[in-house]
């Protein structure tokens, strides 16, 4: 066998031998291409799947089995459901940021409407290297424009997400796109090719040579020659996808009895789409590549089967409704062509005209080798845990430090990003971006949904299991701060090369940590994706298990924002105000002071659950007027963001910050919220509730006036606003 071909599809010699054994013969080039794509890390999850059994995946409201469909579905009650998923598009974005990010958005949208649901919200979890580097700036600008370019054009609002900066992402940015769709439970579609004799209908864009080996490219490290992989990046056409979306949603809502399955074409194109659909149904497929409409001449069967041209879907209509389905797509001015049919022989058969060019049991490409992780705990973790944080002298001028943090790339306002995204189209966005989670109402239903993404990768790096639990807990805190109940999780596991024992350790521990927190919080993992091999010649990325979370609000009209009202009383929930030095572990403040991240992250998940339950109970009792979770930058930043959101100062000059002022103000201890309430009576109720549940708290002060006075800090709201709102502009302009 041609070794170069194996390299192209990232198949090892051993894997090739395994394939020969399974086939009982030498495969031809097309067969190697097909199997190589489906056995790639991106499609086959060969290093990550062996860990997935740890995830809790079941719950009363979960309608799908994790991993079996394109996205996870949640029952919202009254006959409605929500589906959601997050997926990475990291490597394409590293070499062609605009199209890489745009097609990431396009891809996740297709996963949602493939299930027959209408996409109503997009979110993006992004990571870049520091903005003082020209290439990172280029990647940042390209990715942000690409996300906007696709989402704005297709008319699905981008309502949330997050962005963090760290030098480990230089040259290997992370672009994780999440989409949420809603619809009636009875319209949920499956991506299954059942009913032998049913036709396979390819709809949407013509097939070109773009994106060939995209799945493979996503499964290897980026090297100096990565630029040469630019042809593996696809080009998006959001206009065509808008038409596909409308046609598919109409098909699901009005004629779902016409079809047996609907599947998107993503990584590995027609190959993965058709084979996975057959695998789900226990059938076979027979495709004639000459029937696939092309945008380029003289394409080989190999190129047609492995093209990742965007905006294509595979519809499996019942044969008696083929004409109806074709007519529906034509009405939306979309091309639809029969390219083959479902068989009962459990084989994948690819023809070029009359000639069979590939044939094998469906069970072979869908049975990738699985590698159990060979893990080793990096020895430096213990050193970092034992780092004495008290070498940092206590803060001298906390006002200046607060202004610095407000302008810090990891904390400063994201408005300059989200105002480039249409976040309001579809008339559902009740809580806009800029707070903890976005809340969307559902027309005709009292319940709404809250959505967020989160991951503090620095904490994951310090202690992968605890840090990953914290990522889940913080996502849940974002949801709870809007008055919504956390319900389910999707994740995007972004790691380096899993063949390295230290990375395998991070990956394994992260899965365990996510599982720990999801069990405690009652939020099963319903969908997800793994993106491994995020490495460049200078090193691997911080381990970044991005968490996407969906919450349900019992009444979207009663959602909380982070903005208190005039004279509201602000209370810290979950901890005493005075914190010890350990609270600076992994914090933004300490990282700046030390020049590296150190300390031992900690979370008590039982306590976390108790605190979150208190917030929801207090909201239900109508005692809260605002809530915000405390994360990067500590309570000083949380209170600052609340003050800026409300354009109100803070009267809390009298608080006692204890022996370490920096730890109390800028420390990042977990399980903390700031809440606002509007009367002494409500405060008394809240105090009683808190005492009864043994939750620590500390009354901070009052939202009022134009000065922000917090212990030793005394700043004007306008000078804080300037730092906060100009932060990203300043970094990009420098």
């Amino acid at each position, binding site marked *: 066998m041609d070794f170069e071909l194996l390299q192209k599809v990232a198949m090892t010699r051993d894997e090739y031998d395994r394939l020969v054994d399974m086939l009982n013969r030498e495969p031809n080039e097309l067969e190697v291409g097909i199997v190589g794509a489906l056995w790639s890390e991106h499609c086959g999850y060969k290093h990550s799947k062996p860990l997935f059994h740890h995830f809790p995946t079941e719950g009363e409201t979960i309608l799908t089995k994790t991993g079996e469909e394109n996205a996870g579905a949640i029952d919202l009650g009254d006959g409605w459901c929500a589906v959601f998923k997050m997926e990475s598009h990291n490597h394409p974005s590293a070499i062609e940021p605009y199209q890489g990010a745009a097609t990431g958005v396009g891809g996740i949208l297709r996963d949602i409407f493939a299930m027959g649901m209408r996409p109503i919200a997009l979110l993006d979890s992004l990571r870049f290297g520091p903005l003082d580097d020209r290439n990172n700036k280029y990647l940042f600008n390209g990715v942000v424009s690409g996300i906007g370019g696709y989402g704005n054009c297709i008319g699905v609002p981008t309502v949330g997400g997050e962005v963090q900066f760290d030098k480990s992402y230089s040259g290997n940015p992370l672009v994780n796109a999440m989409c949420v769709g809603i619809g009636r439970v009875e319209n949920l579609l499956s991506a299954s090719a059942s009913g032998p004799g049913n036709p396979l209908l390819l709809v949407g864009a013509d097939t070109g040579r773009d994106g060939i080996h995209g799945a493979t490219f996503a499964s290897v490290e980026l090297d100096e020659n990565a630029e040469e992989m630019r042809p593996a990046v696809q080009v998006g056409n959001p*206009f065509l996808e808008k038409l596909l979306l409308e046609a598919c949603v109409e098909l699901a809502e009005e004629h779902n009895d016409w079809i047996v399955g609907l599947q998107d074409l993503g990584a590995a194109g027609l190959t993965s789409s058709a084979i996975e659909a057959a695998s789900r149904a226990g059938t076979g497929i027979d495709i004639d590549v000459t029937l696939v409409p092309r945008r380029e001449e003289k394409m080989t069967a190999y190129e047609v089967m492995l093209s990742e041209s965007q905006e294509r879907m595979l519809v499996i209509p019942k044969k008696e409704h083929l004409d109806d389905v074709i007519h529906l797509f034509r009405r939306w001015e979309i091309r639809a062509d029969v390219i083959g049919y479902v068989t009962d022989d459990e084989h994948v058969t690819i023809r070029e005209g009359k000639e069979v060019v590939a044939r094998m049991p469906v069970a072979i490409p869908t049975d990738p080798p699985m590698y159990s992780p060979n893990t080793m705990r990096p020895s430096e973790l213990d050193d970092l845990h034992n780092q004495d944080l008290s070498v940092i002298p206590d803060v001298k001028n906390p006002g200046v430090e607060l202004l610095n943090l407000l302008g810090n790339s990891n904390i400063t306002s994201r408005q300059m990003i989200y105002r*480039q995204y*249409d976040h309001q189209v579809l*008339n559902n966005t009740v809580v806009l971006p800029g707070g903890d989670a976005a809340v969307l*109402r559902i027309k005709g239903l009292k319940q709404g949904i809250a959505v967020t993404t989160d991951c503090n990768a620095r904490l994951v790096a310090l202690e992968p299991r605890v840090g990953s639990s914290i990522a889940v807990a913080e996502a849940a805190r974002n949801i709870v701060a809007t008055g919504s109940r956390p319900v389910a999780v999707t994740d995007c596991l972004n790691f380096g090369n899993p063949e390295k024992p230290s990375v395998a350790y991070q990956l394994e521990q992260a899965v365990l940590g996510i599982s720990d927190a999801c069990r405690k919080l009652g939020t099963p993992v319903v969908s997800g994706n793994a993106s491994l091999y995020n490495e460049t010649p200078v090193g691997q990325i911080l381990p970044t298990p991005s968490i996407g979370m969906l919450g349900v609000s019992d009444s979207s009209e009663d959602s909380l924002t982070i903005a208190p009202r005039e004279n509201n009383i602000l209370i810290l929930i979950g901890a005493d105000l005075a914190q010890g030095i350990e609270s600076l572990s992994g914090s933004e403040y300490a990282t700046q002071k030390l020049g590296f991240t150190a300390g031992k992250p900690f979370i008590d998940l039982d306590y976390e659950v108790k605190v979150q339950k208190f917030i929801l109970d207090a909201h239900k009792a109508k005692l809260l007027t605002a809530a915000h979770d405390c994360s990067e930058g500590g309570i000083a930043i949380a209170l600052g963001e609340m003050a800026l959101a409300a354009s109100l100062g803070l009267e809390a000059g009298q608080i006692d910050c204890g022996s370490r002022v920096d730890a109390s103000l800028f420390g990042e201890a977990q399980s903390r919220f700031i809440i606002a309430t509007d009367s002494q009576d409500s405060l008394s109720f809240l105090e009683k509730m808190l005492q009864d549940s043994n939750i620590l708290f500390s009354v901070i002060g009052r939202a009022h006036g134009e000065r922000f006075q917090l212990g030793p800090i005394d700043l004007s709201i306008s000078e804080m606003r300037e730092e906060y709102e100009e932060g990203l502009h300043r970094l990009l302009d420098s």
Partner: protein
Amino acid sequence: MMKAAVVVFPGTWSDGDCTWALQNIGIDVRKVWHRESSFAKDELVVLPGGFSYGDYLRCGAIAQFSPVIEGVRSHAAKGGLVIGICNGFQILCESGLLPGALVRNKSLQFRCEDTYLLPGSDSPFTKNISSNYALQIPISHGEGNYYADERTLNLLEEQDRIAFRYSSAMGEVNQSSNPNGSSRNIAGIINNGGNVLGMMPHPERACEQLLGSEDGNQIWLSLLEEYL
């Protein structure tokens, strides 16, 4: 009862929001696909926001040649009411139904945010809106920077055809309240006959307090009153 025809081009996405907002205040709505071209005389024709035909060329440049725009032209010529919002405004300018053009935002970036609009002009769309109250209505566009030559701008002013100007929340029209670089802070204009309005902001999004503002309804209510 007042009726509205909401036009849908391939790539339109505000058709649903316009339908929602109009139905909420009791206006009967039908959707009209871009291949149709006839409207009832008393229908309000709505050209909603979106990216008609993908807008890969200049915004609205292709839509002007569609069958439905022929219908809109003849509807407008007969005095029928037409409102173009966002992409609809761009299409009306491209079709020559309104003067001027919408070019790239001065920031060269897409902008989605709240704006405040000071109403003017004695048209059926604005006649019942108090002129000393700035309406809170969001924008969402990359090419909303209104441009026309000085003569046209002067004419629009003389003929009282500037329907909305971007202002501060307090109603001050100045450079800092201009989100996209539009000439003379123009957010919306009216044709010579007073029956065609084009505006970049999205009144259909400011239709409920739950979404942050219901000021957009004032345009529909103004039309409704006109019809009573």
